């Protein structure tokens, strides 16, 4: 990331841009259970923002609060400078795509899409025209007379999207938009969603539990756990610069080595791993006392594997034996048992076709693991 002053792509870096959606201290309690706990959030116009977390983390509740389907216990929500906290769902300038799609089973595709426009008292000709346009955009023009039960899962998903978008909402809320689709269709639809979002410029807020989906779609992701945000940031930041062990292990795979700090030189800490005879220097901006417990996080793809020891400036090395190899087509994952008994995961791209030549090492071979300090992250919590 450079220090460019043009933040048009990243409005959250520009302190002068006013947020389009502002969530201010929202809490939602169901009886004794706190689903959403004092969260603050700013989302900017045109973003494709994801709320990511495991089931029960409060992400859907937060989305429903934005839609007006749930009243927050405390806190406020602004959209485009207007406090909408007390507005009922049917008066809000937001629309939602439900996880179950919630298509009206007794209406055909065109009637479903037209439903919201009719409620706004829009003239008939305009309704027909806008519904037609929208169905063309989601490539369902020939389906307008079909009932929901005559459609495939992917087609239903597109009807739900068209129905929510045809009202030209300021914000579109999507609750697990792709969860009901099979893997291949999901990947196609991800790009379709991004195309439509870019074309219309509507702000999207997506709730998902699928970290890959969030990474592909989003401008920014907020990771939630137990009703709170753990980290908010663009996908690359969450992946390469996780704030803590939760994020590091929630987004992708990671190897975590426990250690402690030895000395500090400005932002450069010298640390030692607890179970391995290894010292290295890693940058970290927060202040840590000498001797603080820390973790070193290294992504599996950032480790290289060799059968002979290598030496180099800033190169960290561990020795171990290959415990298991998983072949997944594009990659092979090696599980290496180090001398201390830990398992370290290493992925290696399979660049050539014949299987024998891809294997760097075989089961039970002694191997050496290498990574540069710059490719590892120091985590203090």
């Amino acid at each position: 990331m450079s220090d460019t002053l043009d933040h048009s792509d990243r409005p959250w870096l520009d302190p002068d841009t006013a947020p389009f959606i502002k969530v201010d201290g929202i809490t939602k309690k169901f009886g004794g259970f706190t689903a959403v706990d004092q969260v603050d959030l700013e989302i900017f116009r045109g973003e494709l923002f994801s709320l990511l977390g495991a089931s029960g983390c409060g992400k859907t509740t937060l989305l429903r609060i934005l839609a007006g389907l749930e009243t927050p216990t405390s806190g406020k929500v602004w959209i485009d400078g207007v406090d909408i906290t007390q507005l009922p769902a049917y008066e809000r300038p937001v629309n939602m795509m439900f996880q179950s799609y919630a298509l009206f089973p007794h209406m055909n595709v065109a009637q479903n899409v037209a439903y919201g426009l009719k409620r706004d008292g829009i003239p008939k000709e305009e309704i027909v025209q806008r519904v037609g346009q929208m169905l063309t955009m989601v490539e369902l023009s020939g389906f307008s007379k079909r009932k929901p039960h005559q459609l495939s899962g992917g087609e239903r998903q597109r009807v739900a999207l068209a129905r929510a978008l045809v009202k030209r909402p300021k914000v579109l809320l999507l609750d697990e938009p792709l969860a009901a689709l099979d893997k291949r269709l999901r990947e196609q639809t991800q790009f379709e969603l991004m195309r439509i979002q870019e074309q219309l410029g509507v702000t999207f807020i997506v709730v998902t539990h699928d970290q890959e989906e969030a990474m592909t779609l989003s401008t920014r992701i907020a990771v939630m756990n137990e009703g709170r945000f753990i980290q908010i940031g663009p996908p690359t930041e969450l992946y390469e610069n996780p704030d803590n062990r939760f994020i590091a292990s929630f987004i992708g795979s990671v190897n975590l080595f426990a250690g402690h700090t030895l000395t500090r030189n400005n932002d450069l800490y010298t640390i030692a791993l607890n179970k391995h005879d290894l010292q290295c220097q890693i940058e970290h901006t927060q202040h840590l006392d000498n001797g603080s417990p820390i973790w070193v996080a290294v992504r599996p793809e950032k480790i290289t594997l060799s059968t002979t020891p290598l030496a180099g400036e800033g190169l960290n090395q561990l020795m171990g034996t290959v415990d298991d190899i998983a072949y997944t087509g594009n990659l092979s994952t090696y599980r290496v048992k180090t001398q201390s008994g830990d398992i370290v995961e290493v992925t290696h791209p399979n660049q050539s076709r014949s299987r024998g030549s891809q294997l760097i090492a075989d089961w039970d071979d002694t191997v050496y693991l290498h990574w540069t300090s710059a490719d590892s992250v120091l985590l203090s919590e």
Partner: protein
Amino acid sequence: MGKKPSVFLFSMLCFGLAFLYIPMAMLVVYSFNYSKLVPVWGGFSIRWYRVLFESEEIWSALMLSLKIALLNATFATVLGTLAGLALARIGRFKGRTLFTGMITAPLVMPEVITGLSLLLLFISLNSIIGWPSERGMTTITIAHITFSMAYVAIIIRARLAGIGQHLEEAAQDLGGKPFRVLLDITLPLLAPALVAGWLLAFTLSLDDLVIASFVSGPGANTLPMLIYSRVRLGLRPDINALATIIILVVAVGVFIAGWLLLRQQQQRDRDLQIATTDNSDLSGLNDKDHHSHDRSGDIPQHQVDTGTPERPSRR
């Protein structure tokens, strides 16, 4: 979780429950009235209960009704279960449409028609084969079995459809012969429906006046027939006492059944919660677990919530 009912819905609910229960409450209150004139309060008394218990007519009518109800419930459960099995488990057979029609028609047939038709059958049979030579307990029981087995069949069919066929198929796959599978798998799974069906048949029989009046002969008076002959002439405090006892017995029965069902349901909810929290723990701080973030933790929960997983695609 449903949304909170609106004020209108809530008041309609209260009105409905009041409408259902106030008349019954009044029955109970006036059963303790000393006065012979039912609606005129003459002080608290249990004299009508004594009158009731000393009435031999009531006792013999009650005994007859209970005998019929017991026989009816048992036979109707057997026949209704067979019919339910036929409808839910045997795909195609000759006369299925007629069979289905004959099962569902008694549910909506006006009692006067059922009663009249059965009486005429018994009379015709008597003139052709000499049976039944006299009408009474036997003819009433047969009539009751005929209409209550239809109710049992509907309950059994619904339960069979609910539990699906895969358990029986698994038993067959493991070598179970048809009769063994029926005995070891199907019937135990049906147990709650069998109990419900038996109770329903028992109650329907105890409750029936019209059909019994048609097919009964001289001298055989069931309890409803006796009550009817008395109340048509006006209000009688001993009938209030009888009503109170019936309401008490039913209320206690329904309360116990409801409590058991509720406890069972809550236990199931708790088990489910434990099962799902165990699952979701996987997605926490589990360092090197590739699969912790896929949907495996969500799917079982979702299925239980909606009942049938394929439902969204059906309608």
